[in-house]
């Protein structure tokens, strides 16, 4: 009962957040000085042609009506225009990109695997590397190892991702010529090439994020190692490895997992800079392109999807919390 109430409350909150995000996107877009119908109307657009294009795109309606049409289309689909020249967007319809002549869902279907490949691979790498570095640094506090690890972490935290990416391309792609510098190969097409093309993007993202996680893990670990329960565990004669991993690290992971979940959720909405540097067309690149071309449908659809990732990530983090910490 308590669990059911928890789940229903969370679900209601998630839906409310998604509605707010989508509404905010629509309102912000209409405040901006851009006209997607004018962009679609082409060169030498006359006022009558502009009216026809605006009506076709569904933009002649009041903003509130356009927003409701957008929401309704998610469940019922929609049709742009009438007659033989109309364009049908089947449910679940997140909109139609007139710039790319594709449904937003198909664009997401194409770009999401790219972003997911970058994000999940990099996330696994930075979690393992960052946590390990932080633990090692904490256990060897004050030693040369600690200083080297933390100095590297500072570099990682400070370096702009664009610069790191370009330097990696220059070194490994051009100078050493051992890794590809651009392009995405689908996992289904060739798992080996898929991974090969992702090594540099993974390392770029992981280097920067691992630095942050390393510093956080070190700080949390130092606190945990000073706690009474750790002293008790050592006094009981447990092996140091067991003390560190089963006792200290388990508590340290609670805030780490919280941050990890949020970071992955946000990254799934698009690793913009990494995608751009490595010429990978993921959600981030799709969204930036849509903003540049005032493609409202794509902006709304991708923003809503990104919000879904964040709220779901939050929800999963809350669930994981209960597993990691029985007191919750």
């Amino acid at each position: 009962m308590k669990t059911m109430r928890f789940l229903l409350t969370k679900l209601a909150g998630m839906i409310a957040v998604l509605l707010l995000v989508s509404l905010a996107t629509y309102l912000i877009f209409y405040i901006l000085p851009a006209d997607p119908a004018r962009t679609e109307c082409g060169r030498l657009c006359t006022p009558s042609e502009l009216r026809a294009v605006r009506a076709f795109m569904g933009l002649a309606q009041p903003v509130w009506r356009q927003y409701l049409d957008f929401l309704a289309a998610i469940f019922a689909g929609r049709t742009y225009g009438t007659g033989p020249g109309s364009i049908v967007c089947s449910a679940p319809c997140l909109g139609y990109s007139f710039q790319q002549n594709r449904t937003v869902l198909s664009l997401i279907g194409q770009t999401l695997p790219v972003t997911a490949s970058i994000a999940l691979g990099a996330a696994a790498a930075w979690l393992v590397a960052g946590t390990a570095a932080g633990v090692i640094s904490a256990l060897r506090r004050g030693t040369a190892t600690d200083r080297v690890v933390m100095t590297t972490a500072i570099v990682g935290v400070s370096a702009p991702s664009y610069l790191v990416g370009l330097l990696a391309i220059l070194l490994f792609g051009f100078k050493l010529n051992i890794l590809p510098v651009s392009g995405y190969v689908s996992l289904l097409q060739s798992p080996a090439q898929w991974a090969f093309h992702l090594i540099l993007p993974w390392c770029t993202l992981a280097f920067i994020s691992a630095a942050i996680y390393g510093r956080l893990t070190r700080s949390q670990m130092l606190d945990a190692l000073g706690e009474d329960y750790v002293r008790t565990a050592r006094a009981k004669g447990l092996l140091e490895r067991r003390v560190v991993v089963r006792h200290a690290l388990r508590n340290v992971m609670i805030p780490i997992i919280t941050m990890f979940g949020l970071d992955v959720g946000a990254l799934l909405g698009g690793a913009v800079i990494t995608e751009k540097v490595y010429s990978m067309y993921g959600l981030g690149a799709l969204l930036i392109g849509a903003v540049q071309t005032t493609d409202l449908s794509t902006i709304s659809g991708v923003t809503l999807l990104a919000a879904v990732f964040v709220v779901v990530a939050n929800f999963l983090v809350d669930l994981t919390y209960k597993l990691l910490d029985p007191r919750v």
Partner: protein
Amino acid sequence: MRKHILLPGAAAVALTALLAACGGANNTSGSGTPTIAPADKGGTLTILDSETTLTLDPAQSWSLAVTSSGLLWRRLTTWKIAPTGAPEVVPDLATSDGTPSDGGRVWTYHLKSGIYFSNGQPITSYDVKYGIERTYAPALSGGLNYQKPLIAGTAGYTGPFSGKQLSSIVTPNSKTIIFHLNKPYGDWPWVVSTTSMAPVPEGKAPAATFGDHPITSGPYAVQSYTPGNSAILVRNKYWNAATDPNRSGGPDKIIWELNQDPTVEAQTLIADGPNAENSFGADFVPPAQLAQVENDPSAKARLVTSPASPLEYVAVNMQSPKLKNLKVREALEYAINRQSVVVASGGPIAAEPATTLITPGIAGREPYNLYPAGSAGEPAKAKTLLTQAGVHNLTITLATPNDPISTAISQAIQQAYSAAGIKVVIKSLSENAWGALVTGNSASGYDLALSSWQPDFPSAMDNIEPLFASDMIGNGNYNVSRLDDPKVDALIDRAEGTINQAAAGKIWAQADKAVMADAAVVPLVYNRNSFLRGSNVQNFYIGEFPAYPVYTAVSLKQ
């Protein structure tokens, strides 16, 4: 052509070149005029492009006749672009560049024999008509559209999908097409060379899906296309080279790699590794990499730079209350320091001072300078003009896109006008915001606007009419100066209606001078664009127009 700020998918005109080379007016490959080799057949060409999408429905394409669309679609006419000499309009699918009658209101074309689509279907006049009619559908209205206001009887027409046809495009048989225009129009041969006029198999091109699997008429067909990733073009086996002397059809296959980072793209081409030898870049070489090319003889030899062509200018808002007085506007003409704008653009070999609106390479251009003030300007004369106008402490707003080059140019303008006692407030905006402000229906919000322009086809009409005709004010159109001068309109109408191109050129030159006499615009510089190719790419050159390589001539050494 498109102003970089206004168009989706447009290449950034703002990135100009720091150039090595000869600095000559013609395009160079680092060592003088390139020689054109006979086009070898074979190989796979790779084009590296920062764009994330390609528009594969001709109704919506803004591509130039000799770049991407020239590889896929033929039109009734096309452009003949040589490394030197003026561009020409020449027959493509048609047997001539058009036969005018009724004073230029009617244009007749006869199609060649032996012309086919990529599905093996013969190309007929009905297909040409259908392709043009499609451009009137709201779903497909995003193209260049020069033909739309010219073809007679199109008011309220919304395309052929409901079964309605245009009676003003007559096809008495499969080989003849006759256009009835609503006024005499001497540039019609250029208009039919635009991509919107490409034929499409009649009845087989739905609005929503034709661009996914287009049926082409040029030397290549689309094998696959993934937005943000790549497009693969393969030989159109039905393309008849004997009917198409304007395209090399050299490579067997073309891989269009999209979504490239311009810096990485340039580095790849500079390195000229095994993956880059058969490639060229569709983007301007960034300034940082141009400096690198300068010190790399191998890369320098593979750099191609356009003649100075696209015009960078300041549009003077004629509806601004502060600029109503002609003497005030003339002061702006005299005060400008073009030398500092050249420096801000990237140096003397990246741009050269401009004094006319018709740009180099366009027939009919007459060099002149209505406000001879030297390249550094004459702030003293500007002050005198302001005093004569009774204007003191003038403060005006300059709207500019916020890319680095435009920002640098704006600051140069600000400094130049400051020397003449004119305070310039720079309003730096994103491209979309800039476009919405200066092409919108309200004249308020700016006094000056920094802009640039290259025509969509090499006619003086496209230097003047879109920018200065009174019916191009607002509604997203490009008369950013908001010039409404009946004298200029009359010259535009007369020039457009003159069929003899030499005579039309003289009238366009008059229109150029009339706009400058109004001081509605301050021409700044003509820009140059630079591109890199791999070592195995041949016939990669830029003519006098456009300021882009001629993709349809490129081949690979075999």
